[in-house]
């Protein structure tokens, strides 16, 4: 049994679903954000695997872009979470439900 890129793509799909589950199930904003990062990396894995399968470089190139963007997202995301934490002394998103209805 050889491990084809298909396996990697399946693994990526699983990771993606796990990340999604993290967002739906965890209530700490930081952990939720980490789940998003997990999803992005699952996508990266898909890109690489698909690029390998198709024998094109575009997949790998895309990954670099994604990593850069993810980094930018981290910066802003952490800043927002910190701001919220400073203000409310909590990182639990369930505390933030003032806006609703």
């Amino acid at each position: 049994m050889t491990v084809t890129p298909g396996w990697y793509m399946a693994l990526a799909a699983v990771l993606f679903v796990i990340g999604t589950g993290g967002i739906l199930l965890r209530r700490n904003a930081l952990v939720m954000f980490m789940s998003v990062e997990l999803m992005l990396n699952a996508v990266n894995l898909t890109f690489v695997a698909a690029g390998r399968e198709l024998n094109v470089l575009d997949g790998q190139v895309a990954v670099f872009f994604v990593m850069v963007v993810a980094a930018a997202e981290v910066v802003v995301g952490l800043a927002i979470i910190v701001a919220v934490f400073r203000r409310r002394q909590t990182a639990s998103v369930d505390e933030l439900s003032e806006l609703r209805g």
Partner: protein
Amino acid sequence: MDLALSLIVLLPLIGMLILFAFGRRIGEPGAGIVATVAVAGSFVIALVLALDLFSGEGSVETVRWFEWLPAFGVEAELRWDQLSTLMTLVVTGVGSLIHLYSIGYMHGDARFGRFFAYLNLFITSMLILVLANNFALLFVGWELVGLSSYLLISFWFERDTAAAAGKKAFVVNRVGDVGFIVALMLIFSVFGSLGFDTVFDGAHNGELTGAMATAIALLLLVGAAGKSAQLPLYVWLPDAMEGPTPVSALIHAATMVTAGVYMVARTGAIFEVAPIAAATVAIVGAATALFAATIAMSQRDIKRVLAYSTISQLGYMFMAVGAAAYVAGIFHLMTHAFFKALLFLGAGSVIHGMSDEQDMHKMGGLAKKMPVTFITMAIAWLAISGMPPLAGFWSKDEILGVVFERGGLWQVLWGVGLATALLTAFYMTRMMWLTFFGEPRWDEGIQPHESPKLMTIPLVVLAGLSVVGGLVNTPFKLTLEHFLEPVFEAVHLAHAPEGSVAWILAAVSVAAGIIGIGAAIFRYRDRVPAEDGTGWRLLNNGYYIDDMYAGVFARGGKLGAAWLAFRFDVRGIDGAVEGVGSLTRRVGGWLRPLQTGFVRSYGLAVVAGAVGLLVWFLSRGGL
């Protein structure tokens, strides 16, 4: 000719316009004079124009005013033939007298000018009705007399009863009008025109048959029954006595109420081909005659006696025209106009002299106080009772004769007519006796006095007409019949019997009249009976038919309408409309909690949506 004929209608119209505009400024008695002159002018013109026809040289004339409703094949067009001539003369003749009388009667009324404006409006409308040369214009006049009647009945609108009576008269008339309108629909659908000539020629030439003819005729009868206060639509006429007495005399005795008779006579060509409908007319007439006469026996209000009497006499006329004795019907219409107008005007004079007292139980012994009124009314009394040689005798006798002559079941109607004649004599005698004879039963402080000349002159003239009016059509010389014959060329006129039968019938009806008079004198000679038994109360309340109408239609209708208006409409229909609106709003409110404010549930929504989309797309192609 054109101008003269037009002027007959236009003079009262002009009078009306002047009085509407300046009535108040012209004041009393100027307004009355203007109105009287206008109507008298019409009468004179009509008389002059009629001379040709009387001499037998004149021909039927038409005057076209303007193109009116081409879609219905009708113009604003007047028709001057023997029948309309006669009607015009009656209307303007009696009308002038009553106008004159009113100047005295309405003396001191705050809206003197307005009263005469209305009277002129009535004359105009009535003339349009009788002069119209097509159904549409006839209908215009028909409705306008209804309007005048409404205005005049509720002339003293401050009295709730007067206002209610006016409305009732108009509404009941409108019920009859539905029949008229539907008849017009049928007529137009058959003939494609509403012009008299087209329709009558068509009917005569067999274009109208069977069920359609009967339907049209019966529907016309409904209209006529409304206007002429026949069963079952008579209920408005007694109430109409709320109007000033000259109005009762003019509109609700002499002229307007006879419009139904006129209409049936005018449309004789249709009834000719609808024998069942014609018989129905006669039966309705006979039934009404007897029915109203019984009620008239029990009334205490002098005007209500006369009102029911009018209904009863109109029944005679219906019986006549139903029996195809159109001339007899018109003849009775004319004589009735004389003596009934006289009776009303006399009653008005009595009421006037008695300071507006109308209860006969509170009168008595007025003969000496009001001699002119008494004598003239006595003539009318005998005339309506069918005493020869007064006017009523000739006309009533002719009707009874014709009905008898037709034989078969018609003779039942003759019997009814005879019974009615007896009752008529009875109740008229009762009225006369209670009013003019016996001990005075006046309320304190009432000083009965004879009315002024302005009022008595018309009484005298009408009394004269009541005496001689019948001579125009006696079995010895049928002047009127020959005069009207051209109008009824298309129909087979029924004729009164001749010879010994005629003499016997006349004797029988005179006997009936004498018995009626005798019975009444016998009963009321010494004292006024209590008249409060169950039977009397039943009659006095007109068999409670009016109350039944009030209960079923007025009150029941109102309840039903209220249910529709405040339950069905508001709760049902509008409730559904508003319900959709408020439901939408409420759904918005119900949904709001779904937006929980929790990020994770939002995430769930996004993911659920994503899963939904994935399922859709994968279902399109499979993995």
